[in-house]
């Protein structure tokens, strides 16, 4: 039985006219109520724009490398000459410009400390009114500088500039400092961040603040990755050597981000250094190598560019080869990643990103396996971004790209059998950003073409099929205004999905964030944000399975649009300049989450997914220091999440509602990470993770399964005791919890500097005290007495690896 969709948002997003005149007043009321929030926001935006601004001056610093192009993403500090403790920190934008609006006139000291370049110090004057512009060209230095202050400064810049987002960033160095399985992995490393829950050692899928794993937008240089995992989730598709930094926005993200409701993980590729550069590594999982080089000047000149870099990496696992003498392990993965960037003399930046990865499980050649099966899956991504300074403070960024994920199980012996899934997205994005007095603004649009096709068929029958395609258009505008000690971010995003199957869906998503700074040096701030987020794609991956593959569907007749209203508030600040502390509370409401309908009606092609609702609330705390020889980080997260669906398993035709904690409802999660820089280039790192028990559904009994034959109209039972198949009767859904999880990991790295480069062997030991964290319990009611056994997650697991660079 299909239920009408509830709520004003649902009525609007589905665009279905109410035929009943009785419902019309209600619908108008809902629409007015729904539109009230964006109207208020727009009014605030107008007020902010129209408001007379302080007659303060501004300083712009245009930064570039000597004999090369603009330097984006660099921390620039401006210290007031009269009191050097008073400082402003800004990041250069994609055109290499750092802007310091609304500063008192006077003399300032400019300080830029960028690894690989000589430290720059100079004085600049801020005029009484207007903008002072300073051009800075950094010299490359032969000796690499430690750059210990960089992360703190970047955090400070974000603290100054962003009102709403909860952002955590991990650099390549951070990624390599978290003890890992075999090789550094960005998806494993972000598990240490506040608000992030991982349900299993075996899966690098993650949940953020009570959102589903498919509600995380995962971007590689701005291009979406649909299944960012290898080996069913054991580790990610990202080769750490190719990563400059990864940024997780766990909430309150601005209007420029659309498409997912829970978080944004943005991974940026690294062009790495100068000249010919080789980085590689060997681990128990795979061997990888990344080669980088400057793009020949002749090639650049022909395209009107001044400098450029290109890198390519390749990685392949070798379980299949290593284990061959012992047993057949017919699995391997390969991935290939390419990144290039080129900069024009005018500061324009052109990047190109490409990724292709493939996992192959080939049982077709095995004598020990009766059925010939070949299973392949992987992502393909390509895209280019052009960042163009338009003069003044305006920058135009345009991105084109394509992303796809496919998986297929092929049975060479049975050509009538096909299990396959494919999702594709072609995208065009453009945005214009700039500053106007003390305000930064950004407007943009997106046009995507999406399609998916999932098919399961065998023996002349289609077990399930879903397909659709369509266009998605999105526009957004956002503004950040700094006024005295207030920072106000307001934005509005509208996404419209036009599936071929019909029925346009539109989602209006207003967002507002406010931050108030305190203290003589504005080292403390309280902030609050509220916003609406929409998602038009869902993964049908069974989150209860520790290993799995994403099967995507797009919103349409089968799947709803997920709408999430979110509120968060918190406090953040810097203690004595070195320590960053943040505490945030949040409340999230989800409408249109989906779950597989195990009792779907085969005659209804649109009921295979259940539409449900969800609520999560909690609090995150973070304390960290990013400089010094010892860098600790403590993250504490508290979460309560629930999901509510029709319980079709009880009565498919008239299902009652079932509310339960989802599998990622970890009430308390504590992460303590410590990095210690020891003498002689030794680096020691620890991670201790504690998580209260995750929910599971306990069986309350087991019974013998009988097979009913329609041929004889009789039941067949097992012929022997070894053939007995048991089924279980389940207790309340997720009504029990596994024991508390805790694990201590350690990593040790030592860098040897050779004439030709560096060599870094590393030892990682996971689960140092061999805690048997529960993966599954098995309730064995067929034993006397009845037993509970189970399997654990990672045992004590030492791994070694070697990295090199020259």
């Amino acid at each position, binding site marked *: 039985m299909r239920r009408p969709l509830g709520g004003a948002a649902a009525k609007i997003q589905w665009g279905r006219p109410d035929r009943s005149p009785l419902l019309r007043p209600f619908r108008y009321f809902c629409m007015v109520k729904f539109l009230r929030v964006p109207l208020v926001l727009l009014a605030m935006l107008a007020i902010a724009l129209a408001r007379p601004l302080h007659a303060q001056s501004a300083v712009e610093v245009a930064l570039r490398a000597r004999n090369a192009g603009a330097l984006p993403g660099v921390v620039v500090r401006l210290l007031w000459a009269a009191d050097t403790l008073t400082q402003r920190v800004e990041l250069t934008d994609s055109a290499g410009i750092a802007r310091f609006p609304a500063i008192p006139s006077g003399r300032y000291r400019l300080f830029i400390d960028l690894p690989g370049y000589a430290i720059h110090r100079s004085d600049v004057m801020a005029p009484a009114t207007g903008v002072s512009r300073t051009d800075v060209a950094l010299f490359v230095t032969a000796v690499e500088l430690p750059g210990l202050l960089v992360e703190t400064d970047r955090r400070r810049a974000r603290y100054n500039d962003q009102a709403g987002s909860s952002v955590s960033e991990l650099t390549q160095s951070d990624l390599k400092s978290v003890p890992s399985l075999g090789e550094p992995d960005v998806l494993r490393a972000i598990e240490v961040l506040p608000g992030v829950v991982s349900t299993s050692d075996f899966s690098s899928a993650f949940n953020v603040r009570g959102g589903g794993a498919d509600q995380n937008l995962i971007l590689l240089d701005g291009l979406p990755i649909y299944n960012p995992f290898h080996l069913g989730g054991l580790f990610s598709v990202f080769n750490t050597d190719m990563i400059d930094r990864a940024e997780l926005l766990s909430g309150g993200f601005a209007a420029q981000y659309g498409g997912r409701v829970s978080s944004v993980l943005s991974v940026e590729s690294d062009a790495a250094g100068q000249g010919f550069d080789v980085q590689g590594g060997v681990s128990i999982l795979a061997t990888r190598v990344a080669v980088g080089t400057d793009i020949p000047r002749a090639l650049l000149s022909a395209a009107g560019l001044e400098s450029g870099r290109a890198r390519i990496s390749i990685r392949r696992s070798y379980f299949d080869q290593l284990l061959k003498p012992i047993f057949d392990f017919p699995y391997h993965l390969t991935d290939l990643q390419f990144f290039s960037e080129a900069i024009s003399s005018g500061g324009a930046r052109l990047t190109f990103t490409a990724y292709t990865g493939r996992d192959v499980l080939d049982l077709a050649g095995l004598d020990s396996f009766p059925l010939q099966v070949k299973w392949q899956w992987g992502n393909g991504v390509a895209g280019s971004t052009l960042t163009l300074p338009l003069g003044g403070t305006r920058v135009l960024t345009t991105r084109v790209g394509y992303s796809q994920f496919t998986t297929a199980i092929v049975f060479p012996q049975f050509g009538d059998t096909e299990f396959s899934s494919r999702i594709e997205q072609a995208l065009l994005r453009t945005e214009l950003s700039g500053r106007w007095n003390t305000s930064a603004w950004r407007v943009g649009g997106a046009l995507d073409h999406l399609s998916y096709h999932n098919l399961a068929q065998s*023996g002349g029958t289609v077990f399930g099929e879903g397909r659709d395609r369509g266009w998605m258009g999105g526009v957004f505008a956002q503004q950040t205004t700094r006024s005295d000690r207030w920072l106000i971010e307001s934005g509005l995003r509208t996404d419209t999905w036009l599936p071929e199957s019909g029925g346009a869906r539109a989602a209006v998503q207003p967002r507002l964030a406010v931050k108030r700074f305190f203290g003589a040096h504005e080292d403390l701030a309280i902030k609050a944000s509220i916003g609406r987020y929409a998602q038009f794609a869902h993964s049908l991956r069974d989150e209860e399975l520790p290993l799995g593959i994403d099967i995507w569907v797009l919103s349409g007749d089968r799947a709803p649009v997920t709408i999430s209203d979110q509120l968060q508030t918190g406090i953040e600040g810097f203690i004595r300049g070195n320590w960053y502390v943040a505490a945030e509370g949040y409340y999230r409401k989800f409408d249109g989450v989906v779950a597989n309908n195990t009792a779907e009606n085969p005659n209804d092609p649109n009921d295979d997914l259940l539409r449900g609702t969800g609520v999560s609330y909690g609090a995150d705390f973070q304390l960290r220091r990013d400089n010094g020889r010892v860098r600790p980080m403590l993250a504490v997260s508290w979460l309560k999440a629930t999901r509510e669906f029709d319980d079709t398993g009880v009565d498919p035709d008239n299902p009652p509602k079932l509310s339960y904690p989802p599998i990622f409802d970890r009430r308390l999660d504590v992460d303590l990470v410590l990095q210690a820089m020891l003498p002689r280039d030794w680096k020691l790192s620890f991670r201790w993770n504690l998580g209260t028990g995750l929910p599971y559904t306990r069986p309350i009994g087991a019974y*013998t399964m009988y097979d009913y034959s329609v041929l004889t*109209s009789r039941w067949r*039972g097992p012929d*022997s005791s070894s053939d007995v198949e048991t089924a279980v*009767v*389940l207790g309340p859904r997720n009504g029990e919890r596994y024991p508390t999880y805790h694990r201590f990991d350690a990593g040790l790295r030592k860098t040897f500097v050779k004439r030709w480069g560096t060599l870094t062997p590393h030892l990682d030991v996971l689960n140092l005290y061999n805690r048997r964290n529960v993966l599954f319990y098995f309730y064995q009611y067929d034993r006397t007495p009845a037993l509970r*056994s189970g399997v654990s997650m990672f*045992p004590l697991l030492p791994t070694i690896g070697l990295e090199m660079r020259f």
Partner: protein
Amino acid sequence: MRSMLAALPILLLLASCELTEITIASPQDVIITELVLRANDPLQTAYVHRTVTPGAAGAVPNATIIVRDETAGTSFTLAPTGDSVCLQGAPPNTLNGGATCYAANVSTTAVRPGARYTLRVEMPDGRVATGATVVPGAFAIIQPGRARLNEFDTCGLPSGTAFDIIWTKSAGAAVYLTEARLRNLRQALRASGLEIAGNDAVELGGLSIGASDTIMRFPSDLGLFDRFDDDLIPLLLAIRDGLPAGVDVTLVVAAADRNYVNWVRGGNFNPSGVVQISSIQGDGRGVFGSLVNRRINIATYPGSYPFCN
């Protein structure tokens, strides 16, 4: 040696993950009722058993099982009877010593296609379980049509050929289950040079999902659920394009209701065992499903029967 060393962590990972077993409290006693109504069948049966509980047998001899025809307002009661009425073959090995067969002799119109029935299972201790089913609508096999079947509902098929079996739509059917018993298949394949062990008849199944999927390719679509069976794979590959000469097939196409499908296809993943979706609520679990069956025979004895297509 180097390979083995490198493989060590993986072996460790694979080998050392078992948790210590602990004794747990007794499981709950849950009555499992499996009742599948068969349209126009004068014998209706139910197989009733229970979850494994210490010291308790699986049999449930004292239940009162009543099926009520909600359309006609009549009802019939199933009474305990011998296992052979419910079971195919010898009594099976079970976890807790079997089950109890219940049966009712009724008229051939007691269970009709398209009618709605309710079930009530009462236990002496007061537990009551209920369910409801709508029997799928009547349907007929149209290929091979009536004219192509002899008086024993049998048609002939040339060896090495396949054909489509087509039937009319059964209103409300969730799936069509096909089951075929192929007698003399192993011997016939052996005669054609393929070494297949044993002499037993082979039973293979097929499936059509949804009321509108009213076609199956015979014999290519059979054996859908046997494709992981090491012994049967060569046999399935050998009959993809047709049967060898000398095979005698009995084939049933059954339109099944949604309750039956939910029970057999399973629910959410649980590491402790299969989860079957119950169509019985209250103090018990199980299936209250319904079927409408159609039966034909196909033989590959050359020249003896009218051709199937």
